[in-house]
């Protein structure tokens, strides 16, 4: 018995080593191109630009920096508004799409199309729509409204939210559809036989079964929310309206001014917050 247990243990260890070996190339790439540079960023967060050790001074500077606080608030606000909206709308669209037989394929492609459009083209589209002489103002002028430079007003935030939702909706719809496809049809049939309505089915069957997908989609959507910076930057430059002044704008401008010490400290803080959020989410789903 001991001999069988020992052999079993050695086989398990060997399988683990082999697995690690196959993981090694990818792990090497991640280590060299992401982990090591980030370690350097962490190091720089405790030094001046030229490498002299400064302790926690950079963190103090960043936490007292008004621009950092504003960018952090804007980024948090953007995320807090966009993620629930995106998850909700994309889930609704996926549920409605699931039942479509004839038009389902075409509609899926239509939802995914915004993702295929290059950022520069999207920016051009936003300028045509939302600038002072844009189509939206032209439409509103029929009703006697004064023209508004939407991207340089308080509405810029909502334009960015709309842009994010428009671009990422299709991606989340596809992920939800994959999740929905994994729910056995028999459960739905059994529920209908028991007299459950559509809403009851959705709440009691669909949602619980989608929880594993929810974690993945939430994390991916959260990471994608940072890409909204590209449109904001290309439309409005280094200094956009204050409502869409995001963390990346700050990093971009700090890099231009060679404030790498502050940038490193802010990057570490941001990474820590994101990591914490992801871990909390993971823990929450694991408990479920």
């Amino acid at each position, binding site marked *: 018995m001991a001999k069988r247990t020992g052999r079993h243990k050695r086989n398990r260890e*060997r399988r683990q*080593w*082999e697995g690690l*070996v*196959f993981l*090694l*190339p990818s792990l*090497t*790439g991640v280590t*060299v191109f992401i982990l090591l540079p980030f370690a350097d960023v962490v190091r720089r967060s405790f030094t*001046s*630009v*030229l490498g002299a050790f400064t302790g926690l001074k950079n963190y103090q500077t960043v936490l007292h*920096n*008004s*621009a950092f606080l*504003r960018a952090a608030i804007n980024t948090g606000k953007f995320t807090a508004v966009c993620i629930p909206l995106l998850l909700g709308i994309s889930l609704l669209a996926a549920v409605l799409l699931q039942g479509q037989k004839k038009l389902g394929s075409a509609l899926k492609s239509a939802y995914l199309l915004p993702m295929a459009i290059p950022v520069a083209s999207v920016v051009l589209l936003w300028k045509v729509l939302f600038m*002072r002489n844009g189509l939206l103002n032209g439409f509103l002028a029929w009703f006697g409204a004064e023209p508004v*430079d939407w991207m*340089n007003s308080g509405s810029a935030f909502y334009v960015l939210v709309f842009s994010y939702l428009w671009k990422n909706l299709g991606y989340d719809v596809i992920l939800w559809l994959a999740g929905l496809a994994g729910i056995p049809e028999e459960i739905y049939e059994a529920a209908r036989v028991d007299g459950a309505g559509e809403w009851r089915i959705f709440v009691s069957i669909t949602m619980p079964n989608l929880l594993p997908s929810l974690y993945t989609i939430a994390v991916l959507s959260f990471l994608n929310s940072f890409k909204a910076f590209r449109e904001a930057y290309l439309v409005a430059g*280094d*200094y956009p*309206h*204050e409502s869409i*002044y995001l963390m990346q704008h*700050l990093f*971009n*401008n*700090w*890099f*231009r*001014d*060679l*404030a*790498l*010490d502050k940038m490193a400290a802010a990057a570490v803080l941001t990474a820590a917050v994101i990591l914490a959020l992801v871990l909390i989410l993971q823990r929450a789903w694991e408990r479920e």
Partner: protein
Amino acid sequence: MTRKIRGRCAVLLAAALLLGTVGGCGKDQKTGSEEAQVDVQQTGADGQQTGADGQQTEADAQQTNAEGQQTDDPQDTERELRQDTEYDPAADGLEYAGPPASMQEKEKADTTSGQSADAAMGRYMERELAVPEGMSMFVAFGTLEDGALRVLGQSKALNSACVWDSRDSGASWETTYVLNEVMGAENTYCVSGAVEPDGSLFLCMPDPYAQAEEETMENYIYGKILPDGTWQQTDLAFPDDGSDDMMSGYLHKVICAEPGKIFVKKLTGADCIYLFDDTTGELLATYNQEDAYVDYFEKAGGAIYAFGTKDILAFDCATGEQRAEDAVLTEEIASDQRNLTVISSDTFPTVMCDGAQDGEVYYATRDGIFRYVSGGSVVEQVVDGNLSSLAKPSVMLYSLQSLQDGAFLLAVRDDSSIKFLRYLYDASAPTVPDTKLRIYSLNENKQIRQAVSMFQARNPHYYVNYEVGMSGQDAVTASDALRTLNTEIMAGSGPDILVLDGMPIQSYIERGILQDISDVVQEIKDTDGLYENITNAYETDGGLYAVPSRFKVPVVVGDPDILAQITSLTSLGETAQKLREEDPDIQEIVGFSNIYWTVRTYYEAYSAGLLKEDGSFDGEELENFIRQMKTLLELNHYSDEQAGAVYTTTLQEGEEGYDFTSILSMTNFFLGEEKIEQANLNSGFQLQNFLAAAEKIGPITYHTTPYMDGNVFVPCLVMGVSSQSAEQEGAKEFVRFLFSQSAQAENQSGGFPVNRAGMAEELGAAPTEAVSGTGFTYRKEDGTMVDVSYDVMGLSDEEKENFLNIVESLDTPALTDGVVEDLVTTQTAECLAGHLSVEDAVHAIEQKMNLYLQE
């Protein structure tokens, strides 16, 4: 294969991948630089290629130069290199101490151990020859059958075209012909011509015998000076191309095809090159392509090269057919628009000549002298423009000639003087100097280019590489360029010297990126003297990390009584309104070129007042600034056509790097259509022009801008040395030179010099005669013609003293932060154009400025 073996193979494979990844990241930089050196094709005197790997250099190193001198002693080499330049260190009050100590040690090590294995040797050295005494204008030169050099030009003193010969390779010249005497006329003025090998010359000139007041085609005559010195007039049988303007007889270019035949192109009329018999005037051939535009042409290697605005056409001289086999050459030249852009009627962007072999072509541009063999696939650089005077912005090319000894002779105009530059191969000189300096600026700067070229000539052991962040050829913005620069700095491969205009100067100082150059500044202060009120503009904690090497003076121009009423920006607006009430018909009360540049001009004069003492942004001052600018624009009356030009709210394509804030236009003053103008004074010549115009218009004067407490100046060409530079000594050497009198006296409209001796030279000697003449003809809207001309005299002592007093009083540097300037200028321009209300513009600027200042 068993699982054990599979596992071990996987481990080996993964280990190999890991090692390859880590090894690839640590690629040897030196290997990269060696490879870069090999790409530089250098050609020896006999046309053999030499490479940076030194394989052929040993053989070349034994070659003798034209004088038959051979030297292996590095000290002799150094002396000879220095003698080849005309630098007189005493003129700068500095002693040339030779190469820096670190380089002397390196040279000593090279001497004791033999030449460095990596050093490629041999390059063409530039030497300036004497020009004929009294020559005020160059027309053409050529080599005669007996090897003598012959030059055709103009002598201002004799008021005649002249011909000079040199029989000692340009060391001295003797006058051979004075055309007034040859032609029995007065005031002969040759505009173009060609020297033929037998000594005859073909000329084009306004008819010296004509008495007609109105010039017509008949007023240009053509003819030859024969070898016996007699004049023979020739009528060239041009075909009728429909041109009959007064310049239609002007020959833009004449080149000798062979003895007795000439190629010509007219300045106006058909875009053709004609071949004539220069004795009978018979038209022998025409070279053209339908719908092709030809600016000028060159002849070399058996082909005619017709230069257009975008491309070059090559025609075979013998057959007249277009040559496709020279596509490599024409495309290479045409790839840089500068090589095609003709700026004046007597100089050319690219000049060519024949080589010794059939089909061999040499051509010169700003980038150097190049060699090409017809039908070949390679264009070789023979002379690097960066290591010669060719890269100087002030140099413009007349003509290139290859000499029998293998040297090249280049006639150029450098500013207002004519120079003959000879390039002779020196096998003992390093192909590329060992010590490299990198200078970086965001925008192309002629002042820096000029200084680089001058420094290079005086310090041949340095190779100075001038890099520009925004070339204007791509969509790179200032932010993009700065990020790229910062990446290089942090990687340790940043430039040695920074031109800090448009850069975050304070940020660089705070982060220790810049070296304290107080010692360099002190040296210049002790010798020539500096305007410390300017140079100390960025003094930080007693150190000078960023020092302006030039400055502009914002001035407001107008009637003295009007200027006396202007004490602030608000009073400018009030005064302008009063003037409009008094004179409702005048076009402009305050001059506007276009909205963007005018706002920027006023911003530079007013910017220092937009920040409070605590560094925060003053919204009230900003609002006042925008309101006053709006008022000034609205008080002007423009026609629809004029409004189209004025209402430009952004930087236009091609304007990057240019300084339109320094354009002080007096045209509307002459026309009586303007009361007040503002601009930045940036040179002594501009001041002379203004004062001459002011005297003509009278009474007009100028003051420093009175919009805030203190007298504002605009720091320009702010220089810094990188604290990360490996060539600290060399970098400081360059900065020292840039602040020296000789460099400071060379003004490419980059601003006044901060060097006191340089300023004295800039303002010129006491006026004895006109510096230049100027004038214009203008048709007013009512059809009347206004004809203005006047002489520009040198500054009187009183005028100089007045200006120097102003310079001494300057105490407030304008804000040079590019981010702030862009924010304020663009939003204000949008407001003036009616796209934004004043409140919206103020709010937008304040909000963005707050973000910027909070960062």
